[in-house]
């Protein structure tokens, strides 16, 4: 990080016109990222944004960095190759809930279990924006959309649970109405050496307006957003009157602090090796209509994929010296004809 020139938001903004609908939550996420970048002490040319297809996936065009706008669902896979080939880069992956949990669900799972050094931002608007409003794998049951005129019948994914089930080592959640919180989560993701997964609640004001309003509106936040903070008891409420405990079946439960006493509250441990705690917290809320945790659910370091691969290369070179083509061709039985 030495000698990295000082930059401003403007340096990180590309010259391309931003083409989201006016009022789209994607704007505020973009702003948060562009504001954060100068703080990270990295170079623009060492930063790459990779995306799939969708409204969210237009993101790379607006960053004055390297970028690939790939195909639907495949960004994590493409980014894996890039991160392995170039462990020196900072690679970000951006996509929507359709992109990363519907068509691209499998690549997301595998990138998480492999712990490839990527910062993965899932813009969850619970809808297919770019294709004009079909339901997505995070839409609530009963959702009426163009493709489900009688209401959807699919149980939605809880992206945090999915990630934890797939051995994710860094898992966080934030929302598009809180720039500071977004910046903090993105910074944490950047600093994490491995696959860092961040779900961002994002408002699609055209096809799913207000989906998160019940929890992210300014006046709702205190009572509906449960801030997870490492080492602190999990509390929330307009007067911090609510808290979270773990019951005897390992489930997280919301309680009145007055009822149980402060000491009974769960103290959040994002570094818990075992993901059960994080998982239980992810189940606290079944959707953005009840108190919902945000913040870092889990942050546990383990060996990073690209680094491990590089180590094997280094080891091989140590063992057998740098490859010599002539020796390779002669490495099996040979004979002379004269």
């Amino acid at each position, binding site marked *: 990080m030495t000698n990295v020139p000082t930059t401003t938001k403007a340096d990180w903004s590309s010259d391309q016109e931003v083409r989201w609908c006016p009022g789209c939550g994607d704007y505020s996420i973009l702003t948060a990222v562009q504001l954060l970048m100068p703080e990270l002490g990295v170079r623009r040319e060492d930063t*790459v944004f990779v995306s799939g297809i969708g409204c969210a996936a237009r993101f790379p065009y607006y960053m004055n960095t390297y970028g690939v706008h790939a195909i639907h669902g495949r960004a994590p896979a*493409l980014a894996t190759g890039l991160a392995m080939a170039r462990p020196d880069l900072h690679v970000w992956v951006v996509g929507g809930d359709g992109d990363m949990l519907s068509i691209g669900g499998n690549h997301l799972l595998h990138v998480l279990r492999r712990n490839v050094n990527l910062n993965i931002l899932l813009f969850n608007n619970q809808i297919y924006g770019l294709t004009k409003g079909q339901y997505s794998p995070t839409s609530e049951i009963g959702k009426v959309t163009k493709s489900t005129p009688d209401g959807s019948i699919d149980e939605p994914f809880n992206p945090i649970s999915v990630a934890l089930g797939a051995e994710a080592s860094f898992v966080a959640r934030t929302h598009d109405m809180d720039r500071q919180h977004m910046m903090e989560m993105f910074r944490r993701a950047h600093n994490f050496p491995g696959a860092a997964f961040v779900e961002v609640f994002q408002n699609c004001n055209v096809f799913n307006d207000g989906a998160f309003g019940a929890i992210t509106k300014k006046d709702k936040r205190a009572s509906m957003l449960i801030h997870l903070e490492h080492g602190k008891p999990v509390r929330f409420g307009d007067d911090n009157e609510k808290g979270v405990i773990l019951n005897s079946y390992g489930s997280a439960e919301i309680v009145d602090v007055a009822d149980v006493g402060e000491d009974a509250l769960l103290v959040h441990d994002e570094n818990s090796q075992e993901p059960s705690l994080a998982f239980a917290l992810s189940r606290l809320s079944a959707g953005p209509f009840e108190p919902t945790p945000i913040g870092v659910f889990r942050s546990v370091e383990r060996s990073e994929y690209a680094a491990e691969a590089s180590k094997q290369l280094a080891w091989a070179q140590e063992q057998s010296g740098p490859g010599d083509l002539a020796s390779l061709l002669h490495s099996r039985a040979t004979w002379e004809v004269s």
Partner: protein
Amino acid sequence: MTDTLPRIVGTRELDRLVVRFAGDSGDGMQLTGDRFTSASAFFGNDLATLPEFPAEIRAPQGTLAGVSAFQVQVSDHDITTPGDAPNVLVAMNPAALRKELPHLEVGGTVIVNQDAFMERNLAKAGYEGDPLEDGTLDNYTLFKVPMTTITKEVCKELGVKPRDAERSKNFFALGLVSWLYGRPTQPTLDWIEAKFKRQRLVADANSAAFKAGMAFGETAELFDFNYEVRPAALKPGTYTHVNGNTALSWGLVAASQQAKVPLFLGSYPITPASDILHELSQRKNFGVRTLQAEDEIAAICSALGASFGGNLGVTTTSGPGVALKSETIGLAVSLELPLLIINIQRGGPSTGLPTKTESADLMQAMYGRHGESPVPIVAAYSPSQCFFAAIEAARIALKYRTPVFLLSDGYLANGSEPWCLPDIASLPDLAVEFATVPNHTNDDGSEVFWPYLRDPETMARPWAVPGTPELTHRIGGIEKEDGTGNINYESDNHGHMVKLRNDRIAHIANDISATMLEGDIEDAELLVVGWGSTWGAIVSAMTRVRKEGHKMAHAHITHLNPLPKDLGDILRSYRKVIVPEMNMGQLCRILRAEFLVDAQSISKVQGVPFTAAELHHHIIGALDD
């Protein structure tokens, strides 16, 4: 038995010999064939092999479905195929005999493991009587050898348990056949030592069985002669023995070295391509990175990501995997990045015949994508030539910044031949120039980087890799403006870009070698056009046809897209053009469409290559028309 004195037996000379080893999947026939081949290669014969095995890991023992076979032709002159009908069949059990006998030349030699011809095995093979006794083999020379019994016996002395000893019977067979055809013994003994050095007893048992087989040949009064196939007059040089998948893997390593660009392989296992992944995962000291991805789509995407990062991205697979990769190949066409898509073709459609060969994915390579998305196609034509084909495919990908298809097939992949190792210095320089500075001056004088500003000669766009200051840029699969690379939906621009993408691939025709043309170029009555692994059979057939006094020529197409520039003229200069293919006539259709020439398709889609005899027959038929 090993210490009796050698009998005097005569030696007869052969110019070539086709041996087929056949047994149960568990009998180690592939290994046996491989060793026979290696010894022959070491001896200096020219040779070519054809392994064939079932799709199951272990098909039910003793059944026809479980038969695994390995055919090798060894010769004192230049040959290009594993031979037509074998001269010798080694059958380790009744099923092997039943399945393989029909292929044997009439009057050929059959060597059986007599011990395996028990009632139960006969029934499993579907024999009602005992073929060794009931006249089934009347037209052949039959040698009945109690291989299991002798092997167990010699192993007993070593303290090997009978069940384990039995496993060495293939080495007995190998020893016997080696003696019979005068193969050198030391290479095999050395190989056994090296291979089983950590399993002393196994090494000893195999060596003992091998020697017992040799001794048996010499001693038993069954054989009055043995035979000799003299070394071939091959061009001088250092040789090794290689199959197509290994040669191809080494070609990729070579390309990476010659380009000074690291190799990245993203792959998902699939028969018969997996061995390339296996081979390259052992080449880490060459800086080769391999990723066994979660599926074929992730495999190619990771390779493309690596290419964006400045590596030579490669993905290897077979037909079904290519189907899955097609969307990403389209993206690579749009991104204009180097990428190799390697298809080791197998029998289709769908899962088809995974362990059998076929070359029916040419049209898929040409057209298996939506929209207009042309991709260059290179095809390998012999096992060792896979090395050069890989280098050539990489050359085109790197120089022209494009995905390139490299087609091989199951026959080339697993087939092997002696290879006169090339001088490294003779390999082409594939050095790549990465973009390092802005390439466009705006009206206001500022310097910027345009990712789609093209090299006037190659029409290739610059390869600017992340980490390079001042060249940050964004690319994607949406239509873009030429030059700036910005998203552009305009009609005229799209028309321009579609044409440009077409032209830039067509243009590569200026930079590939002329059509490989051989035979009676000036005055042939007939031209045979081939591509891929039919090369060997066509060359062999042509030799026979010309020996018979006919005039014919052979054009072999190594670049299927774009086609060589001289091809149209060549096709038009012969009265008859036939195109033998292991598909229903795919190249033939391309030639007809492109050149309006009445080329006729000769098609064989049976999971096995053409034999020279079949092609000879077709050619004579066409000449007679």
